[in-house]
C-alpha cells in the first residue's frame, strides 16, 4: 500500500519515509502542498500522512482537496500543534486521525493499519473472503488454509481489489494505485496481472465489469 507523506522538515521527512518503507509500506515523500496535489493527480495513495504547518499553505487545505476527489483517501494528520481547537478543526475538516509530534513510529504504523482497516470496512488486518484470507501485516495470502505465493504486484492488486470490495475499480485507478502515474503499456500489464492472480486464487473471485474495470466478488 502506498503512503504519501507530506512533511516539509528535511530530517523528519527522510526518517519517516525510510521508516514506512521498513514497515512494509511503499512510501512517497513530498514537501509542499503543490507537490502533494500534483502527485494525487497522477497516482493515488492508499493513505496520506499530513503535516499541518507547511511553507506553501495550510495543510488543512489538502483535506478539502482530498474530499473533493472521487476517491476518499484516508488522511492521518501528524503535527506539532496540540491545542484542542486544532485537533477538532482537523477532524471536522475530514481527517481520519490526528496525532501530535513526537509520535513513535510503531504507534504511527499501527494507526495507519487501523485507518486502512476502517476505510476498507474490515475489523482486523486479516481480510477474509470466504476461503481466501489476506494477512496485511505479513503480506501473505492463504486459500483454505494453504499459503498462496503471490508476486509483490499480484499482492498489491489483490489488496486494492479487496480494499474496494463491493465496488468497481476503474482500470485507470487500478493502474494508478499499483504502478503510480500512468505508465506505457500498463493496460496490458494490468490484464496480465489479473490473469495471473485469477489463476492462483480462483477466477470467480475477480469479476470483470465491462468497459469499466474490475471488482472483487462478493462471498
Amino acid at each position, binding site marked *: 500500500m502506498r503512503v504519501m507523506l507530506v512533511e*516539509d*522538515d*528535511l*530530517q*523528519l521527512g*527522510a*526518517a*519517516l519515509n*525510510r*521508516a514506512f518503507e*521498513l*514497515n512494509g509500506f511503499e512510501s512517497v515523500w513530498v514537501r509542499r502542498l503543490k507537490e502533494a496535489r500534483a502527485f494525487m493527480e497522477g497516482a493515488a495513495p492508499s493513505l496520506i500522512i499530513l503535516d499541518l504547518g507547511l*511553507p506553501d499553505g495550510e495543510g488543512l487545505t489538502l483535506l478539502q482537496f482530498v474530499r473533493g476527489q472521487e476517491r476518499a483517501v484516508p488522511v492521518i494528520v501528524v503535527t*506539532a*500543534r*496540540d491545542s484542542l481547537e486544532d485537533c477538532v478543526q482537523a477532524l471536522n475538516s475530514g481527517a481520519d486521525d490526528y496525532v*501530535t*509530534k*513526537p*509520535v*513513535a*513510529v*510503531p504507534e504511527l504504523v499501527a494507526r495507519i493499519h487501523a485507518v486502512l482497516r476502517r476505510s476498507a470496512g474490515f475489523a482486523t488486518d486479516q481480510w477474509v473472503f470466504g476461503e481466501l484470507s489476506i494477512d496485511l501485516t505479513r503480506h501473505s495470502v492463504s486459500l483454505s488454509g494453504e499459503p498462496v505465493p503471490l508476486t509483490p504486484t499480484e499482492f498489491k492488486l489483490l489488496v486494492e481489489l479487496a480494499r474496494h470490495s463491493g465496488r468497481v475499480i476503474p482500470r485507470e485507478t487500478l493502474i494508478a494505485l499499483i504502478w503510480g502515474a500512468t505508465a506505457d503499456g500498463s493496460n496490458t500489464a494490468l490484464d496480465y496481472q489479473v490473469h495471473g492472480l485469477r489463476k492462483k486464487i480462483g477466477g470467480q473471485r475477480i469479476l470483470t465489469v465491462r468497459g469499466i474495470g474490475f471488482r472483487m466478488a462478493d462471498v
Partner: protein
Amino acid sequence: MTLVWVAFGALALADSRRVAREQIDRDLAFLAQSLANITSLAPDANVGVALGETLRNFQQRKSIQPMDLSDITYQVWSVDGTLIARSPDLHSPGDLGPGELPLGRSVERSGWIVAAQASQDRRIVAVVGESSPYRAKVAHAAMRKFLYPYFILALCLAVVVWVAMRYGLRPLRELAATVEGRSESDLSPCVPKRSYLELEPLVSALNGTFARIQRMLEAEREFFADAAHELRTPLAVLSAQAHVVAHESEPAARLTAVRALDEGIARAANVLQRLLLLARLDATKTAKDKIPTDIADLIGDVVTIRCATAKATGHELSSNVQGPLLLRCNSNDLRTALDCLVDNALKHTPPGSHVSITANIADREVIITVADDGPGIPPDLQERAFRRFERLGATQDGSGLGLAIVRRVTELHGGRVLLRQGPGGRGCRFEIRIPLAA
C-alpha cells in the same frame, strides 16, 4: 513611650518627697514658732494644752496629713538653758537646748526631724520634732495625692491609646487578612472590603506589584509553551531516526541511518541550548560578569569555530579588525551572539557567498558588523526575523532563536542591533552597537 512614662513617674516621685519634706519643714517651723511665742506671752499656760490648741487650729488649715500629739515631740527652753516643758516621749531625741540646734531650719536627730524657733522677744526657744512614722505617713500621703491619680490617668491613657490603635490599625489588619486569604496563584487586583484613604497608596502599590508579577508569569508561560512546541519536531525526528537505525538490516544503510541520527541529536541539542540561553538571558536585567575583552580576539574565536563549516559549504568567511578593541562585556555571551549571526549568514546564503565580520569604534560605540552578499531579508520581514521562534525561509535546522539571542545580548549590554542593507545593496548587514561607557 513607656520609658518616658516611667521617667516621668520617677521624677514625680522625687518631687513628691520634696513636697513632703517642705511640708514638714513648714509645719515644724510654724509649730515651734507658735510654741515659743505662746510660752513667752503666757508663761503659766500648760504647754501641752497650748500645743494641742495650736495643733487644732493648725489642722483647720491646709495640711497633707492630720497630726496629733503622739506624732510630735517638743521641748521649750528659756534662753538661759532652763527647761520649761517637754513632751512625754518614748523615744526622745535627747536634750536640745538653745544652741544645740540651728534656728530656722529643720534637722534630723535620732529618728526625729526637729526644728528650733525662738520667740519674738528672744527669751524662749521651742523645739518641735516630728516622728518617723509621721514622716512616712506624710510622704505616702503626698505620693497618694499625686502619684495615684497619675497612675490612673496613665492607665486610662493606655487604654485609650490601645483602643485607638486597634481601631486605627484595623484597616491594615483587614487588608492583611484579605491578601493572605487569597489563593496562592491569585494575582488579580486586591480590592479591600472598605476603602480607606490612608491605605490607598499601599493598595495601589500592591496591585501594581501583582500586575507586574502576572505579566512576568504570562511571559514565562508563553515562552515555555513556545519552547515545548519548538522541541516537538526535533524530538519526533530523533524518535523516527532511532526507529530506522533499529530496523535497517543492511550495514551500509544502518550506517547512513546512524549518521542521520547524529545530525538529529545535534539539532535537538542546538535548540535546547538556545532555549536555555535565552531563558537565562531573560532572567537578568544587565550583562553580568563583564570583563575587558579584546573584540578582535572574540571575532577570531568565532571565525575559528565556523571556518570549517564555511569551507564545507563553499562560503568565504573573512574578518577585519584594526588593532585591539577593548570593551567591557560578558565575553561568552557576546561570542555566542556573534556566532549566531555568522551561523545565520552561512545557513541563509547560497554556497559561494561572502560573509565578513568587521569591528570598529565610532560615536563612542563599538560596532561589530556581520555582512553577507546573499539574498537578504525583505524589509517587511525584517522586524519579524528578530521574533522568537520565527524561522524565515525554508531552512529546517535552526531554532528561530538566533536573532532573538543577539538582540537580548546587545540589550543587556546597553546596546542595540541593527539590520541594514548588505554590501552593494544585496544581502544583510547586521550591526551590533554597544556603547563604550556601558
